């Protein structure tokens, strides 16, 4: 077990957030946190990264975890270059120059590393965001809407990177509202709707159990049942 949530709730003043979510995440798996906008995916990720504390319920962690995180809504300082940002964040994690170089090359920003973020496209900023999440040792990688702003080539590369991380023995949890992307990559799925977990478990098993061909069909069926 990597983490277990017991009746976790984090409700905001606009009544959105996460409501009584119970879940179990196991080590070494690729887990998709799927659902529509405002389903509570980012809230759950912020709770897992410790940025926010739950209103009620508790998180029970397995052995000592080292979490790397890719947020969905970060704007890097515009006056710094990719190299400087990776260097700054790398120094906080005590990551050497060689690994910083490897990470920048992996996300295709090595050639543009000297340019300030001001001159980056949305896709390049998202790749920089991904690069910082790959920095340093960790056993739990959290990616919040990692496909945002990426072109098809980099979405394909992202899939490869997620699989590479799994090969290294890491647990990868990613949130997405693209159900096809979740289906292609995930082994486990947590389907959220309006702050509630409406389905969770092994993806193939869940689809078979509900007699659905794909995640989209399952999602629509579950939403209609919930209405």
């Amino acid at each position, binding site marked *: 077990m990597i983490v277990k949530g017991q009746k976790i709730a984090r409700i905001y*003043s606009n009544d959105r957030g996460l409501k009584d979510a119970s879940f179990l995440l196991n080590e070494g798996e690729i887990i998709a946190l799927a659902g529509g906008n405002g389903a509570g995916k980012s809230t759950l990720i912020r709770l897992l990264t410790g*940025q926010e504390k739950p209103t009620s319920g508790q998180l029970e962690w397995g052995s000592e975890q080292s979490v790397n995180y890719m*947020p969905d809504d970060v*704007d890097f300082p515009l006056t710094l270059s990719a190299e400087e940002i990776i260097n700054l964040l790398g120094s*906080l994690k005590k990551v050497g120059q060689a690994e910083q170089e490897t990470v920048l090359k992996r996300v295709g920003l090595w050639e543009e590393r000297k340019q300030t973020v001001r001159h980056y496209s949305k896709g390049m900023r998202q790749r920089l965001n991904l690069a910082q999440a790959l920095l340093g040792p960790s056993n739990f990688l959290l990616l919040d809407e990692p496909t945002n702003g990426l072109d098809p080539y980099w979405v394909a590369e992202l899939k490869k990177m997620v699989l590479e991380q799994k090969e290294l023995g890491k647990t990868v949890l990613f949130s997405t509202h693209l159900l096809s992307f979740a289906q292609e990559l995930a082994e486990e799925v947590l389907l959220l709707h309006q702050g509630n977990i409406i389905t969770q478990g092994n993806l193939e098993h869940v689809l078979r159990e509900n007699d659905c061909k794909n995640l989209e069909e399952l999602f629509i069926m579950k939403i209609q049942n919930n209405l």
Partner: protein
Amino acid sequence: MLRSRWMQLVALLFVFVFASVSLIQQMALPEVEGFTRQSAAALNLQLFLLPLFLLTIGSMSIAGDVESGWLSLLKTYPITLRQYVFGKYAALLLSFFVMLALSFSVVIGTGAFVGQLGISWVFVVLSFLIVLIFAAIALLIGAIAKSRLHALALSLVLWASWLLLLSYALMAIGTFSAGHVLQKLLIVNIHINPAEWLRFGYFLLSKQEAVLGPAFYSFTNFYSSPFGLFVYACLSVLWIILSLGFAVFILDRKGRVE
């Protein structure tokens, strides 16, 4: 922070205004002893411009990090909020110290050509003290603010209150209240208003406490003593420590259960 175009523009404007005012004052009124129009103008300029630039730039710097998600990301790294706030403080100090050093250099350099244009050490010390205190307050405002715009608004309200409104309010109160009441209010204002605290510090360090008038004799007498100066230094440090401490506390509270 020095790479920010806004910061560069502010530095350029400050150096230009400071050098121009020093030069014009010198041409209009060559230096004489005591609290002159020249020293009053230079003091007012520092007390108006430096807090304005510090409060807006400093507060928006932290509020910007919160708004952009950069601080949220940093929170997932092995860095404490205390380190983050002190890092921001150091960056702000460095930027403004460079700006001050540049403006003093320009004035001294100009003085070499026109003659008699100099800067007293008290003025230099006070300028650095303004930066030390207002940079800390700026970070506290940034921590309180919910967005960059909110930080800007809060900064301007506080700046206007400390530099303009409180003084006018006291003048208004003085028209109908007894002298001893006004005197007490002025002493309170000196202690709760960092701009007045610094102005008072200038009088203390330049030994011109008499500017405040005979009614403040016992008050100025206390602060001009060695122990009083020590108290002044301690209270100045307290402004800094409390502001930075509350900034860390508020940033820590942000994101917790509402």
